[in-house]
């Protein structure tokens, strides 16, 4: 028996996928891999194979199926826990997504721009009034998406210390099972209480509107939990990684400062380049399916190496190079298929406004420590920076 690579692997360098992922892409694009619990799964690393898999209904998103890959170890399940959005297959998934996707249309996201701008400006007012150097993670990167998702959902931001700490615990790969379960349970209970209050006194927010449409309280608590978790760390990490990258690449930064019209394409290239939620789009086969000439059998797990796929030479010329002119929108940093990130357009708007505003208001921003001293989230489901010390 040949040894198969054990996933998850750490990145080889802060800007690159693990070297083993790239080797697999070249030599074994549909590879047998071993998981921390000793089980095996398939790893896909070519963009086209992943697109094919994620749009094939013979692969399920139901994390409760036996053999679903990369589930947190020893995960106890709450008695009242039901699958929510990311864990649903058709036709339930389509119904659940349609019930909420109207909240995330391009029109709605654009309508939120003025309020997001205010939030970013308020954070930067505080940064500019505060000490130098400062850490941009707790002062800008995390509060912006956190304030935005709290307002959208109708969750009091005053409770942010509570969710941010629990979210980080849930995403950290080495969090012990009991602690993970407790964190999830605490957020779930918090959501249930909040929803009960909103049922009595509705506000102008997503959770209240879902209640108005007759949403089941338990399902809504699950959805609120998912959106709160997804809205916190992901965009926050892209803000810190993106700021670091632009500070290290004067030409890209100059292009951004010169013409805000290029910001959207810079954001797409940053999303492609980091692909921070690399393993999130895993699936389980429910029938035998051939992908890339390999037979994947019913019951076998499939993991997508999305970071490697976003460097796939068949899809991106010279993919290891950060190139703001490449036109990177066909990346799969937000996944692909029916489950593609619900909040992707909110993330785009937040990132565009943050980068435009940050470098306009603090044009001489610079790293306060050498870049090679920065500390990366190598052991989290969502990649990012622990802190980003800057000065000006």
């Amino acid at each position: 028996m040949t040894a198969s690579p054990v996933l998850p692997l750490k990145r080889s360098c802060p800007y690159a996928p693990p070297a083993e992922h790239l080797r697999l892409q070249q030599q074994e694009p549909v590879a047998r891999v071993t998981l921390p619990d000793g089980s095996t799964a398939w790893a896909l690393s070519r963009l086209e194979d992943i697109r094919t898999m994620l749009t094939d209904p013979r692969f399920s998103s139901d994390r409760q199926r036996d053999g679903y890959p990369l589930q947190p170890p020893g995960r106890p399940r709450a008695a009242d826990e039901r699958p929510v959005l990311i864990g649903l297959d058709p036709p339930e998934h389509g119904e659940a997504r349609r019930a909420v996707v109207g909240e995330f249309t391009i029109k709605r996201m654009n309508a939120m721009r003025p309020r997001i701008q205010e939030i970013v400006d308020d954070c930067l007012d505080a940064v500019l009034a505060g000490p130098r150097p400062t850490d941009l993670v707790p002062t800008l990167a995390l509060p912006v998406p956190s304030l935005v998702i709290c307002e959208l959902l109708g969750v009091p931001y005053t409770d942010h210390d509570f969710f941010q700490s629990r979210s980080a615990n849930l995403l950290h790969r080495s969090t012990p099972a009991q602690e993970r379960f407790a964190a999830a349970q605490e957020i779930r209970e918090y959501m249930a209480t909040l929803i009960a209050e909103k049922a009595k006194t509705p506000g102008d927010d997503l959770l209240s509107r879902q209640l108005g449409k007759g949403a089941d309280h338990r399902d809504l608590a699950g959805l609120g939990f998912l959106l709160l978790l997804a809205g916190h760390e992901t965009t926050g990490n892209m803000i810190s990684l993106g700021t670091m990258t632009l500070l290290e690449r004067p030409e890209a930064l100059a292009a951004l400062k010169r013409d805000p019209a290029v910001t959207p394409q810079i954001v797409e290239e940053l999303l492609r380049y980091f692909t921070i939620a690399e393993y999130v789009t895993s699936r389980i086969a429910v029938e035998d399916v051939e992908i890339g000439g390999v037979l994947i059998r019913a019951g076998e797990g499939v993991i997508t190496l999305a970071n490697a796929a976003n460097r796939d030479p068949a899809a991106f010329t010279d993919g290891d190079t950060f190139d703001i002119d490449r036109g990177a929108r066909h990346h799969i940093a937000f996944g692909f298929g029916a489950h593609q990130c619900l909040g992707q357009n909110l993330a785009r708007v937040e990132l565009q406004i943050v980068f435009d505003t940050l470098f306009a208001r603090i044009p001489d921003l610079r790293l306060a420590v050498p870049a090679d001293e920065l500390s990366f989230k190598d052991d989290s489901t969502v990649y990012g920076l622990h802190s980003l010390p800057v000065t000006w």
Partner: protein
Amino acid sequence: MRITADLERCVGAGQCVLTEPAVFDQNDDDGTVIVRRATADDDETIRRVREAVHLCPSQALTLTEPGPPR
């Protein structure tokens, strides 16, 4: 070229609207695609619609040659 959308498949990701807002819009209630124009004639519009077809995560869009005149 004829532009069609399969509303059963559409998941409201909005990538078509980001790519070519002159052709695509979204239903305010469920986010599903509204095709504002049934055809694309000029090269630039065809190029953008082709890109929207490629980016659509649920593969709900198609761009086809019109059939022979009846």
